[in-house]
């Protein structure tokens, strides 16, 4: 690997504020949290989803059900990767039928992960609606997908990488953009 240029774009406090704002926006858009199901995409999306559930509970006093999605089996690039990625469990509490599902991911980029996640959700039944929340939207969509809730828009180039670190997994909360300068 060559040298890297790294720039922090969000610290722990900014991430917390973004999550709080998204929680308020979810409640506002859905006029409360009736019939909501928050579903995080493994792995960091799941941590974000958990935090959103906690935040919504703090605001509304009600616990919204939480699901975790592993989209490995729905990827569109499996034939081009050399070995099969590890499959982890998908866990959805109860039915998705007639619920409003809020998908949560850390970084929205090409939109292919979200496509896979929507396909998987629909295999569990017909939700009333699917909404999308992402901590970072870095652009460069390859599919007609747009988020409903965004923590921060970060214009990037393809050569750059967006790193989201989360306390639960990485020991700290931080978002950085890295560029490999070979």
């Amino acid at each position, binding site marked *: 690997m060559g040298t890297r240029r790294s720039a922090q774009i969000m610290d722990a406090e900014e991430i917390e504020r973004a999550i709080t704002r998204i929680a308020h926006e979810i409640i506002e858009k859905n006029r409360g949290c009736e019939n909501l199901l928050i579903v995080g995409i493994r792995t960091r999306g799941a941590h974000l989803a958990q935090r959103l559930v906690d935040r919504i509970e703090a605001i509304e006093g009600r616990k919204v059900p939480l699901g975790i999605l592993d989209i490995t089996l729905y990827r569109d690039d499996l034939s081009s990767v050399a*070995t099969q990625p590890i499959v982890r469990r998908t866990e959805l509490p109860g039915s998705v039928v007639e619920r409003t599902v809020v998908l949560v991911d850390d970084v929205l980029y090409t939109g292919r992960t979200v496509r896979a996640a929507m396909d998987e959700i629909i295999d569990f039944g017909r939700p009333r609606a699917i909404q999308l929340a992402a901590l970072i939207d870095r652009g460069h969509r390859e599919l007609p997908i747009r988020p409903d809730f965004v923590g921060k828009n970060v214009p990037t180039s393809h050569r750059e990488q967006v790193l989201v670190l989360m306390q639960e997994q990485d020991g700290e909360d931080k978002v950085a953009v890295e560029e490999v300068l070979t």
Partner: protein
Amino acid sequence: MRLESRHLLGLEDLGPDEISLILDTAESFREVSEREIRKVPVLRGKTIVNYFAEPSTRTRVSFELAEKRLSADTVSITTAGSSAVKGETLRDAARNLEAMHIDMIVIRHRASGAPHFLAKHLDVAVINAGDGCHEHPTQGLLDLLSMRDHFGRLEGLGVVIVGDIAHSRVARSLIWGLTKMNAEVSVCGPAPLIPLGIEEMGVRVWDRLEDGIGEVDVVYVLRLQFERQQGVLVPSGREYRRLFGVDRERLDRAKKDVVIMHPGPINRGLELSPDVADGPHSIILNQVTNGVAVRMAVIYLASGGDGSRESGSEERQSAGSGQRPG
């Protein structure tokens, strides 16, 4: 983490890490069978041939369901309907299948080593669904998964395998799998059906069930296979039941939380009494459920391309660690 080989020929060839990977993956796949739509699109466009040159219902159905739940296209051939009855050799049959661009062959054959032969001569992934008296690896894996589910571990688990060890590919795969996972394995059966030197596989031999039934966590009862025994190796059915049959009375000498397993189909009232087969200690139906999940895991992992042909690249590492395209 990945499998060393694209084929699954036997548990003898697998390391403990690979066995754990398959079991962990099977646990994730179990959830798919409980969904409203019991299907994931992961193997869309892949073609799998089930070549069953020996009678089988359970294993064949289990493989077919696993393949369909992964969205693969499948064809099943049984010898009665195939060119084998016209004298076609296994190699010719397989070459012809290969020429039709298939991705995987699941093979059951009465000749030990038939899957290895195919793996050597064809450019497709080969899964052994039971070869002669050699191995039945997916059965061994589903047995390991059922034990791990129940006890939460395999290490240190006491298991006795009862019956015709010599002719049992189920026993052989199970012994390889359990010893690799550091379980403590014993075998018990009529002396002519215990292979000489089996101790070298790391197992103990009991002459009578009473020797140690009070010590083990699992009693694994094999099917008495009249169809596979030539000559007079076994005394009469009644004699066998008296000496080695697992019934209520023998079970009373076992640990309170002992578990009874059987690969099926059961000769009820012979190797296993009906009240024990259907009783609270039996996890025989869990084995069947786990069979589909284990086969999904094996097919999924084996369809990941030829591991031996690629060098360890960064990209594969990231694919393996679950990096997504955004």
